[in-house]
Every structure is written in C-alpha cells, then in structure tokens.
C-alpha cells in the first residue's frame, strides 16, 4: 500500500499523459559525463517528451558496464493554444552505470516505445579511464544570468554602466574537470565588490540530478556584515551541467552590506529528501516497475562567496545626500494646477529605479519662498517584474500652501550614490507652473516689514474684508493656572482623600478589633468584672458563688467541667476551683439554704480564682 501511495503521483502523471493531446514525441539519451574512471558511477538520462504509454527497453547490456535503472522524474507543462489546453509531459528515466573495467564503450541506440511508436536514441560513447578522478571533457556549465530589471532611460537618469551581470560571481558549480555531484547548491551574485548600504540581488540555486523534494520553504541563509531581504517565490527549472541533467530550484533575494571590508556570504543550506535507489530488493508491482527507491534526508549546502565591501566615498558627497544608493530617476507632478487662498497644492515627487528604497529619505524642496510646506507622506510600489522589492518607485506627496500668489511650485532635489559609475548624482525636478493664490489665514512673519514700511495707519486705505480672516473669533476665557491647581479639583480630591483615609482607619480598626488576641483580652476583661463584683463584703453568698461560677466559665469559655480538667493550670489550682464549683452546685440544689461566708473565706476564694486567672494566661 505504501508503495502504491508513493507511486501515485507517477500514476497520475501517466494518466495525465494519456489524456493530453499528442505532440511531437522525442526521445533523447545523454550521459552525465563521457569520461569517467573505473568504479565511478555515471548517470544515463533517457528523456522522453510529449508521449504517453512509454515502454522502455527491458534491459541495457554493455559488456564492461553495469547498467541499472535508478528512477524517473516527470514534468508536465500546460499551455493554451487557440483556446485549447495542451498538456505536454516530459519524463527523464535515469540509469546508473558503473564501469567495471577501463576502455571505450558504446551504448547502443535504445528503442523506446512511445504512444505505440518506436523511437530510437543515438548511440553514446563512454570512455572509462583506469584511475579514478582522471580528467574528463565535460561541457562548461552555462547558467542563465540573473534577470536584471531594465533600468530604462528615464528623465534625469544619468547614463551609467550596466551592472556586471554578464559574469556573475558564483560558487559551487562543479568545474568541468570535476565529476558532477547528484545534488549541490550555489550562490550567484552579480558583483564581486559592493558599497556599504548597496542592495545587491542574490540568487541561491539548489541542483538535484535525482528526484528530490525540499523540506523547507526557504533556505537558511545569514551571515555577519550584511542583512538579507525577503525571499521571492522560488522558481524551478532544468539545466544540463557536465552532460548531466539537473532540476534546480532558485531562491531570489537581495543583501545589503552593513560594514566595509571583505564579508563572507553564505553558506546557504536547504534540507531536502533525495530519492536514491534502494539497497533492499522490492517485491511489489510498483517497486518492480519503477525500481525500489528510498528517500534520504540531506542538507544541500552552497559554498560561501566573499564580497569586497567598500565605504561610500567622502569626496563629492552632496549636502542633501541621505543614504540612497542605486540608480534612480525623478519626476514631479502638481495637482491642482489652480488653487485658491488656503487651498493646498499636492506636489507628488516620484523617485523610481533600483536601489535601497528602505533607506531613502524624501527629496529636499528648494525655492520654497512664498510657500508653506509640510513633511511629505510616502508610499512605495515595487516593480511587478521584481519579486524582491529593490526595483520600483517611491512617491513623496508634499502638501503646499501658498502664502503669497505663486506661479510655480518649489523644485525637489534628490541626491544618491550610483555604484555603477561610483559617483554621487543629484537630480532636480523642474518647477511646475501653477496658479496658487496666497492664503491669508496664516500670518506671515516676513510681510510685517513691508507693512511697517507702508504709509501711516491714518493714510491707509480700508483693507479688504479678507484681511480680518487671519483673526480668530473665539475669545473663550482661560487661565494660566494649571488645572491641578483648580479649587474645585483640589476640594474634590481632598474630600476623596479624607474619605479614603477614614475608610482605611476604619478598616484597620476592624482588623485590630476582630483579632484573636483582642477577643481574648475582651474575654479577660469580662471575666475580671465578675471577680470585681465578688470583692464587696456586702455581696450575698449566693451571688458571690454565682459570680465565681460566671468568672470560671468566662475564663474557660465554657460551663463544662471538662474544660477545667483540660485547662493548663496546676492540679492543686484545678482542685481548688473544682471545690468552689462543687459548693456552688450544692448551694444551687440544696434546700437548707446558704451559710454566710466569713471575710477570710471570701478572700481565700478570690485569691484562688486570681491565681487560676494568672495561670490561665
């Protein structure tokens, strides 16, 4: 079942091939290398384009070569022609060849059945040397250059040398003399030198000669001395290197060096699951059909690239330069062309081109006499052809208000450093003709001189009614006293503070009153009141004993005799108090009446109760 799931995409592709319209079928065989050493594996790729129902030769046998089927990769391209969808499927069948002995071998023409037709490949020659690593004459890899956005001739763009993209600086592509790796990565940078702050496009490519799938959306790519912009959506393509067909996935981004000196870019790493022939025999149908395959995780890594970063030159740096680096053009528009008093005129200054738009400051307005200007709003629109965002246009919108009647707008001045010509460039917009009436709602300090120099007030002719528009009509009374010193505010806060403090003291009082020790003290006070009542000699004996019982109960918190027995007083004190309680009980239930108590007897009982009270503490 697992094998079925694994093979499902291939089956779907086969089905798609079956239903797609027939196109010219082609079959081509190619060796990844035509010179190898004994024991060194080499790939034979059999590419079949535009066909369905492909039937491969059962076996390719050449004496001295061990040839085994290794796997298949497929690609379907859908195009629309005259309103019809056409799907063209191309498949690459890979065979792994291991030379057993040295010599020159000819791989015969292979017969492949495609859609009922039998097509034949050209024979191929493989030279096997005796020593591993012997030089081989592979093709020099030619990668497509990084697409460089067209800077175009725009107003104000000075002529500049095009960026050096024809010979990109790259790493990791196997030189012709090296045997091609089944997977590898490379960093492609259009330049070997750059300036601090310059945005440099970078392409990270990961090549796969065997079926594979990436395990991460984007590669890990960072380093010291530069910042990385966001990655664009990756693109996939095919390329033949050293006679070997590779699928490669390319990630475009841009870096900005932040310090001068040599900086190391990379390595970039991309985890991938690579399909390799299984060492285990396969016993199911699909395993036999496509060969038993295993996925193995592998981190594809590029070699680092060194970039020489130079500081920006100090010579010729304009005063308005604020860090923009690249190639830019500038243009301005004004709207509306006619503005009444106090009507704003919007001056849109558009800076377009390629470079570090993130670090770009607004152009400086010059010749602003008679205008009131405000800090501009800004927006950036990336170029549709540039997925990274270092090509595009940034628009700065200035709001202008004419203080006096003006016929042209201020001019905008923008300075940047062009790394291609290695010079600072200053661009200026032309003044735009407008008809703006001077506003009077805002006082102008400079006309005051003119007014002061004007004829005496008495001789002054009546001013137009609009003259008083500069004045305000709201004369609401106010005070220099801070609001926090307002009497009502202080009184309200004072009252709240007093209330809060009172509640705080009340709360604290309650806590204190309700505490255990407070309750115990209150109980003691209550008990001693009974003792105090026993003191007078005029107190009748009956009441005397009752007070004694009440005292004992108040101190123990219970009338129960057990409480006395469990109390912490000495045994003799316990016995004395018990005898007092006995007398009291006897007195309560006896019918003979109560005998009078002598003064000494009273004192003895009170003393016994006092020592009981002391011992209970």
């Amino acid at each position, binding site marked *: 079942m697992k094998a079925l799931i694994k093979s499902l995409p291939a089956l779907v592709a086969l089905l798609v091939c079956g239903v797609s319209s027939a196109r010219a079928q082609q079959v081509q065989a190619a060796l990844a290398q035509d010179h190898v050493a004994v024991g060194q594996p080499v790939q034979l790729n059999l590419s079949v384009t535009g066909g369905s129902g492909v039937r491969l030769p059962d076996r390719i046998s050449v004496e001295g070569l061990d040839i085994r089927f290794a796997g298949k990769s497929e690609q379907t391209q859908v195009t629309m022609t005259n309103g019809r969808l056409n799907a063209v499927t191309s498949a690459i069948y890979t065979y792994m060849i291991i030379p057993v002995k040295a010599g020159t071998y000819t791989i015969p023409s292979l017969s492949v059945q495609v859609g009922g037709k039998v097509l034949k490949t050209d024979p191929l020659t493989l030279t096997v040397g005796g020593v591993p690593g012997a030089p081989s004459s592979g093709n020099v890899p030619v990668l497509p250059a990084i697409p460089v956005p067209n800077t175009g001739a725009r107003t104000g763009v000075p002529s500049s040398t095009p960026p050096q993209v024809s010979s990109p600086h790259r790493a990791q592509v196997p030189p012709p003399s090296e045997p091609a790796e089944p997977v590898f990565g490379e960093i492609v940078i259009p330049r070997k030198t750059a300036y601090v702050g310059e945005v440099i496009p970078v392409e990270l490519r990961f090549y796969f000669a065997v079926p594979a799938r990436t395990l991460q959306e984007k590669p890990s790519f960072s380093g010291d001395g530069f910042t990385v912009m966001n990655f664009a959506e990756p693109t996939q393509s095919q390329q033949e290197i050293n006679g070997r067909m590779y699928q490669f996935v390319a990630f475009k981004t841009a870096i900005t060096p932040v310090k001068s000196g040599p900086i190391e870019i990379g390595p970039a790493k991309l985890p991938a699951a690579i399909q390799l022939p299984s060492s285990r025999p396969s016993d199911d149908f699909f395993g036999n059909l496509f060969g038993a395959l295993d996925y193995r995780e592998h981190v594809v890594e590029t070699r680092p690239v060194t970039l020489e970063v130079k500081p920006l030159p100090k010579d010729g740096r304009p005063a308005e330069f604020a860090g923009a680096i690249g190639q830019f053009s500038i243009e301005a528009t004004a709207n509306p062309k006619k503005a009444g008093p106090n009507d704003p005129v919007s001056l849109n200054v558009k800076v377009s081109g390629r470079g570090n738009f993130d670090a770009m400051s607004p152009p400086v307005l010059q010749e602003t006499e008679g205008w*009131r200007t405000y800090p501009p709003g800004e927006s950036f629109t990336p170029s549709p052809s540039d997925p990274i965002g270092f090509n595009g246009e940034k628009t700065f919108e200035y709001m202008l208000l004419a203080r006096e009647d003006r016929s042209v707008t201020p001019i905008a001045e923008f300075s940047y450093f062009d790394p291609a010509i290695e010079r600072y460039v200053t661009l200026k917009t032309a003044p735009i003709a407008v008809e703006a009436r001077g506003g009077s*709602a*805002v*006082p*102008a*300090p*400079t*006309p*005051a*001189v003119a*007014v*002061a120099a*004007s004829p005496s*007030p*008495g001789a*002054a*002719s*009546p*001013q137009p*009614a609009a*003259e*008083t528009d*500069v*004045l*305000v*009509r*709201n*004369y*609401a*009374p*106010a*005070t*220099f*006293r*801070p*609001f*926090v010193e307002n009497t009502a*505010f202080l009184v309200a*806060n004072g009252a*709240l503070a007093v209330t*809060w403090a009172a*509640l*705080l003291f009340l*709360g604290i009082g*309650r*806590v204190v009153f309700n505490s255990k020790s407070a309750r115990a003290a209150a109980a003691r006070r209550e008990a001693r009141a009974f003792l105090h009542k026993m003191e007078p000699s005029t107190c009748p004996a009956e009441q005397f004993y009752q007070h004694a019982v009440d005292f004992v109960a108040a101190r123990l918190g219970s009338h129960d005799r057990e409480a006395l027995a469990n109390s912490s007083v000495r045994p003799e004190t316990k016995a004395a108090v018990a005898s007092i309680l006995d007398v009291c009980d006897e007195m309560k239930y006896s019918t003979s009446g109560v005998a009078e108590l002598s003064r000494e007897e009273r004192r003895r009982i009170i003393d016994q109760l006092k020592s009981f009270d002391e011992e209970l503490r």
Partner: protein
Amino acid sequence: MKNFADIPTVIRSWSLAALLVLAGWEAASAGAVQDADKAFAAGDYPTAQRAYQTALSSQGPSAGLYYNLAITQLRQNQPGEASLSLRRAIMLDPRMIDARIALSDLERSQGVPPPPLHWTARWKEILAEKAPLPALMITGCVVAWIAAFLLLRAVFRSERKFRAVLGSLVLLAVGAGLFSVACLADPRISERHAAVVLPSGGTTLLSAPADQSAVVTKIPAGGCVYVHRRSGEWTYCETPSGEKGWTATKSLESVVPTA
C-alpha cells in the same frame, strides 16, 4: 419658591447693580474687541494692539485674544512680543494649531534653532496638541480614585485578596500614569518657568553674571529660555538645546504673566 418681589429690597438693589456692572463690563470688553477688529481691518495695527490689550486686561486671559494680539504685533515687526503672545495663546489652548504654525514660522524667520524632530523629545508637545489635557487629567484621577477605593475593599473585604489587590494596583498605576502624563504635558506646568527674549536684537547668554564674561550663545528675539533663578539684574537660564548661562533680566518676559 418665593417670588422676586418677596426678596428684600436691599438684596434686590445690590443684585441689580451687580448685574448692571457685569453687563457693562462685558459690553466694554466686547466693544474693545470690536474696536480692535475694526482697527486691524483698517490696517491701524497700533490701535488694534492697544484695543486687544485692553480687552485682555478687562476680560481676562483668552487664547483667541492673545493670538489676535500676536498677529497685530507681527504686522508691526515686533517678533519678540509676537512670540510671547503666541506662546501665551498656546499655553492657554495647546490645541490651537494656528498659533503653533505662526510661532513656528516666526521662529524660523528669526533664526531660532528648530526643536528636535524625534517624538521622544516632542511627546509633550504632541500630546498637548492632540489630546484634551483636562479631560485626561480628570479621567486619570477618577480611575486612580476608583482603584484606591477598590484597593481598600480588596485589602479588608475580598476573599480572593491577592488577585483583587493586584488588579486594584494595576488600575491605580494606570490612572496615576494617565494623570501624571497629562500633567507633564500641560504647558501651564511644563512651561511655567519659560520666558521669551523681547529685544529686537536678541540677547546673549553669558557664562557669568557680568558684562565682560564669555558669551555662551546668542538668542534671537522671540527665542525661548527656561529660567532657573533670578538674581537682580541677571537671570540664570537654559536654552531648549541645553545651554545654560546668564542674561539680563530686563531682556526676558515670562510667558506666564506676572500679576
């Protein structure tokens, strides 16, 4: 409810007299403002200035009156006085954008160094310009007091004491923070010791209170300083950019009018 006729005659007479005085006062103020507007429209700025000053002394401080006074002073090329009036207008109504713009223009024309643009240095100004400070203060105060009473309840009554106390303390901090921030941003507090340079030639800040001492910096007319202390003819003050020194007391006028 008693009728007006039932009120004793003496009280009635005094009330009527007071009302008449008040009405006359108001009418006089309104008249002064109207006179000032007319004189301004006629281009008679000295008369307009005097009339606005009369209105201010009779009616009391008003941001609108100070602003109009500043405009007349600007028209007469009195940058120091205009700056003072504009600062007073802003102090009374921090949200008066016209006054802020006019002051900014005036300072630029006088060569007063612009204030730092970063928001951390300007947060008080930004807050005062955008938010109604008294409302913020009242809100902060109310929140803080509610939190204070909740804290009492939490301490003495609540069963989930920790949570309640913590919640009350957080609320208390929020209220107190709001109140403090509003107080700090209030120009009536933060600019309390501000003074404006009046002489048209500006003034110099000296390293010591003596005419021959070294010049620290020059402050143009309309420039603002913060007064640290006054010592007779000399005042020790600080510029917004942090330079400290002595200058002649007579060249400065406090933004908050002295009684």
